[in-house]
């Protein structure tokens, strides 16, 4: 039972992470390699609010969401003026900056040793469920919140504008709207929803180390987006299912520890390679050609 709850929580977290990344990568057509960094900033903010300021979980979560949106805007400041490869490089740089900060600001983040003893939110008295059961319920609620928010956003004028921007950037400018502003908003929203997952991750693991938020994490999330699909939220669910359940499946097959985990990497590497070269690139290219 504990195992099922564990998988449920991790799955929920990755559903939020992949859906947030899908907004940037799929809807705004900006390949971001900084999603893992946003995941990290959210988690550290939650943990620090709870440990240093003694706040309870939900105010800490809200702070993480707001601060992540601000950090998103800060990244957007230089990044949104760039396109294509240059944007990717900027987010990559952002990823490295955040990683180095978490490693080197050891007074604040505990450095490479990490940050431990993050308290778990206390289960309300009236709920007859275990600690992790409660966290699972919290995760579920946050998944629903994140997906509803993203769904409504895509159906709104914001979503229509985003579609129009990817369709024809020059025409979008001619209509009197600023592409830079819209892209910045997309990055901020994506960072904010990512923070929902980060907060749960921090209290669920009760220990944070920089290694969990490095480039590998960003690429892992990117793989989830590419695997599921670029346009619909339910595709983000599929992507999250595959990237969470496949490693579990490999473990269940009982491969020896010497090459079991590396098989995952081989699998995901191959998948990413095939997807990028045969399907995704075409969509990105057709867009660029039209925009010229």
């Amino acid at each position, binding site marked *: 039972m504990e195992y099922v709850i564990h998988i449920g929580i991790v799955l929920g977290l990755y559903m939020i992470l992949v859906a947030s990344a899908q907004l940037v990568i799929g809807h705004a057509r900006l390949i971001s390699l900084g999603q893992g960094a946003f995941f990290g900033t959210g988690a550290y903010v939650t943990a620090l609010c709870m440990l240093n300021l003694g706040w309870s979980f939900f105010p800490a979560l809200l702070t993480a969401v707001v601060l992540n949106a601000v950090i998103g805007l800060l990244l957007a400041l230089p990044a949104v003026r760039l396109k294509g490869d240059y944007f990717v490089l900027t987010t990559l740089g952002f990823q490295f900056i955040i990683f180095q900060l978490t490693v080197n600001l050891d007074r604040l983040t505990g450095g490479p040793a990490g940050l431990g003893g993050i308290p778990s939110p206390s289960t309300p008295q009236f709920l007859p469920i275990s600690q992790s059961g409660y966290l699972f319920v919290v995760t579920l609620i946050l998944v629903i919140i994140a997906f509803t928010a993203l769904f409504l956003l895509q159906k709104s004028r914001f979503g*229509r*504008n985003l*579609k*129009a921007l*990817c*369709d*024809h950037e*020059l*025409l*979008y*400018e*001619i*209509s*009197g*709207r*600023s592409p830079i502003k819209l892209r910045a908003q997309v990055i901020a929203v994506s960072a904010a929803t990512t923070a929902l997952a980060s907060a749960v991750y921090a209290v669920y693991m009760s220990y944070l180390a920089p290694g969990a938020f490095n480039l590998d994490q960003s690429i892992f999330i990117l793989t989830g987006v590419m695997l599921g699909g670029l346009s619909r939220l339910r595709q983000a669910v599929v992507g999250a299912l595959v990237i969470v359940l496949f490693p579990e499946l490999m473990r269940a097959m009982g491969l020896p520890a010497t090459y079991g985990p590396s098989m995952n990497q081989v699998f995901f590497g191959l998948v990413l390679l095939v997807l990028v070269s045969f399907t995704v690139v075409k969509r990105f290219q057709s867009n660029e050609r*039209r925009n010229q």
Partner: protein
Amino acid sequence: MKPIVLDIKGLSKQFSLSAKGAGKGHAQVISDLNLSVNEAEVCTILGSNGAGKTTLFNLINGFTRADSGSIRFFDSAGEGHELTGLSTPHIARLGINRMLQGISVFGHLSMIDNLQMARPVLASRHSWLERMKPGFYRAEKRQAAEKLFVQAEQFFDQFSICLAANQHKIAGTLSTAEQRLLSLCMMVVSPASLLLLDEPCSGLHTDQLGMIAKALEELKRHQKSILLIEHNLAFVEATSDTCHYLEGGHIRLSGSGNEVVRHYKTEQGC
């Protein structure tokens, strides 16, 4: 004498050539160009390929920056704005819309969404007290959408296209002529007072040109001023109020449509 909408003085633009093998050099695309457009008139720019027609449009709506000169635009309230140095979205919000060469619609959006994109963010004239009322924005949004629909429907009716039946069609699936009409309709519903049309007839059958001419009349009826680039001389003669012949980056000849087209024909030897 009609009031002036656009007043261009001494405009120049140079592109530096840095292509391999070509060595270093500069191409003077627009040189000391003077041009003015009157309100509710069709003003055509004629010229061969490379004369600088599209570059002129790019300079007006801010895709490229001018080296020197001034572009003054007078909005529907008669207020003057200097356009050089402004960004494209800013210029668009002042009231200049443009139809790009080729496809000028959002291919993945429905017809009605395209039309809504042509309208900028609601500029409300209500006080903040009125805005605080619950449902204010929803009501205003609905009103704006209804007004837009009626306006667009009237336009499409003239070309016997039923907007109500087609409004959810994706623009990319429409025929070239229909797409062209859709972009012209976007011009009708947009609040812009100056329209830059870059070859609205390209890729159309000669039978369909009458349709575009009719649409231009409709735009004029809505008090919109039009700056037009067009190669089809019969079309230019039929529609233009004034015409300018652009060569080597500046205006060689100005006059009525007929005069300039006649001169252009003798020049080109046809």
